[in-house]
């Protein structure tokens, strides 16, 4: 009887504590999501026109080439950017884990890109890549690598490279710090035992470091993939998706459909398709890692 009473009381209290969060989640995520689903079945400019079209938005998107090229571009962008983050992050986390002089100084510098606002980063890169007075062109010309100024953001493939570089620059510190924290939480006894057994550096890396870091790598990879798959700001400020559609990532596509062409229904439909893709990727990766972990 008494225990039951206490239990009952506990129930109520628990809800009280999560109530504010729950309120915001329902009001600001679940409700908007439902709203987005609703809008996606209309042809609408949100003001006068509200024509119910059912699944027509989805069908016309999924049968249109432009959508697939935008998705492919986003996949390519995401893979290159995330790979860049992990290559830099991996190298740097190992170097920063060494106990040598000045390491705190290097760490402080290397984290800086994470702190600087994205729109600021985009503007800095825009200035660096300025055709006439940009540091990049002037430096390349002074070393005679190029003979005349290159319009980096005016050429499709160059613009893609430029955007990728800016995004790698912005995002690697996050991976670096996550991996570093993972490295520091590895039990040092493991390495000592391996030393006694005469293991080489590479073997220690394969058999101790990598398995211990698996959880961190998984989380970092998921977060980074999701984060950059839906990236918007740097690319938008740098190129607005152009020239042509050279850097038109899926987020930019959603934005343009909604706020430039005022096809809010189609924009919402793309958004929902993208969410589904992200969810499937996450699900598959979870599976993959679990199967690996069972070995």
């Amino acid at each position, binding site marked *: 009887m008494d225990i039951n009473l206490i239990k009952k009381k*506990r*129930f109520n209290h*628990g*809800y009280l*504590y*999560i109530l*504010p*969060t*729950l309120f*915001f*989640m329902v009001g600001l*995520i679940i*409700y*908007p*999501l439902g*709203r*987005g689903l609703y*809008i996606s079945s209309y042809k609408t400019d*949100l003001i006068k026109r509200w024509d119910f079209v059912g699944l027509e938005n989805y069908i016309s998107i999924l049968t249109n080439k432009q959508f697939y090229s935008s998705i492919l571009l986003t996949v390519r962008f995401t893979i290159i950017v995330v790979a860049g983050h992990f290559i*830099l992050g991996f190298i740097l986390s190992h*170097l920063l884990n060494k106990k*040598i002089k000045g390491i705190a100084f*290097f760490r402080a510098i290397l984290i*800086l890109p994470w*702190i*600087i*606002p*994205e*729109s*600021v980063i985009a*503007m*800095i890169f*825009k200035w*660096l890549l300025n055709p006439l*007075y940009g*540091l990049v062109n*002037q430096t390349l010309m*002074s070393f005679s690598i190029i003979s005349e100024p290159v319009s980096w953001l005016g050429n499709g493939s160059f613009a893609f490279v430029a955007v990728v570089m800016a995004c790698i*620059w912005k995002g690697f510190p*996050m991976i670096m710090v*996550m991996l570093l*924290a*993972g490295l520091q939480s590895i039990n040092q006894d493991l390495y000592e035992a391996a030393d006694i057994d005469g293991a080489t550096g590479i073997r220690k890396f394969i058999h101790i470091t990598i398995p211990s870091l698996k959880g*961190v790598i998984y*989380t970092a990879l998921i977060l980074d993939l999701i984060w950059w798959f*839906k990236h*918007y700001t740097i690319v938008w*400020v740098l190129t607005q998706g152009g020239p042509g559609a050279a850097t038109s990532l899926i*987020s930019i596509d*959603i*934005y343009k459909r909604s706020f430039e062409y005022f096809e*809010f229904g189609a924009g*919402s439909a793309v*958004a*929902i398709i*993208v*969410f589904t893709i*992200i*969810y499937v990727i*996450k699900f598959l990766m979870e599976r993959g890692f679990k199967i690996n972990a069972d070995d």
Partner: protein
Amino acid sequence: MQMTETNSKLKSMVTYIVLICLSAFVLVPILWMVSTAIKTEAETFSLPLRWIPENPSLQAFKRIIVEYPFGTQLLNSFINATASTVATLICATLAGYGITRFNFKGKKVFMSFLLVSQMFPAVMLLVPFYTILRRFNLINSHAGIVFVFISMSLSFSTWMMSSFFNDIPRSLDEAATIDGCSRFQVFYKVIMPLTLPGMISVAIYAFIMGWNDFLFSSTLITQDKMKTLTVGIAEFSGQYNVLWNDLMAASIVASIPLIILFAFLQKYFISGMTAGAVKQ
């Protein structure tokens, strides 16, 4: 012995070289921003380019406050980021405690929803937010944008807080209860103060999210007097003649608050970035 010593010397040489190269990769854009900001307008457009300006001046910083609306935008950024940080922190702290200390129906659903909500493309919520804020007349208001920021940072913050609360032994709760604390007192006076480092990390995370936001601030705010710094800087480029020294000065001003925060609270930044990731 001799061999290993030269070997390790060589290794640390290589380490330094790689660190210096990659630090340069990070520093060149930042230093170029600073160098441009203290140049005169004529010098930003003169060749050859110089790293150290001929006549360094802080005029650009003065101009951005006097001639441009950056002062207002700075204030707006502060209001939006601070208000959303406070609200996020209160909600996340309460929820983190509730999740780790109570059992209730739907807890699992709640937790997994926190994770799933990380996957929504921000753009996906943009249109719904736009319609909702418009309906409640919150377009161009601090309140509207603050609500949006809360929704963006709250789920990860709650997740972080619950991992911090998890680290505090339950025996402390019991001891405090025995000492005569009420339920809320246990939370407020005993357990919450112990998670202060975690709360600082969450606050920093939420503040950065709000301060750096561009997508929502640029869409849900159309009135000039409500615009924030990140948007103001990006819109600079839409104008025909960009004064790069002024723009870079504004960029520095937009970055400084976070860099100062970082300088003093580095360790919380890092634990904020890695919370939940490492402990899994």
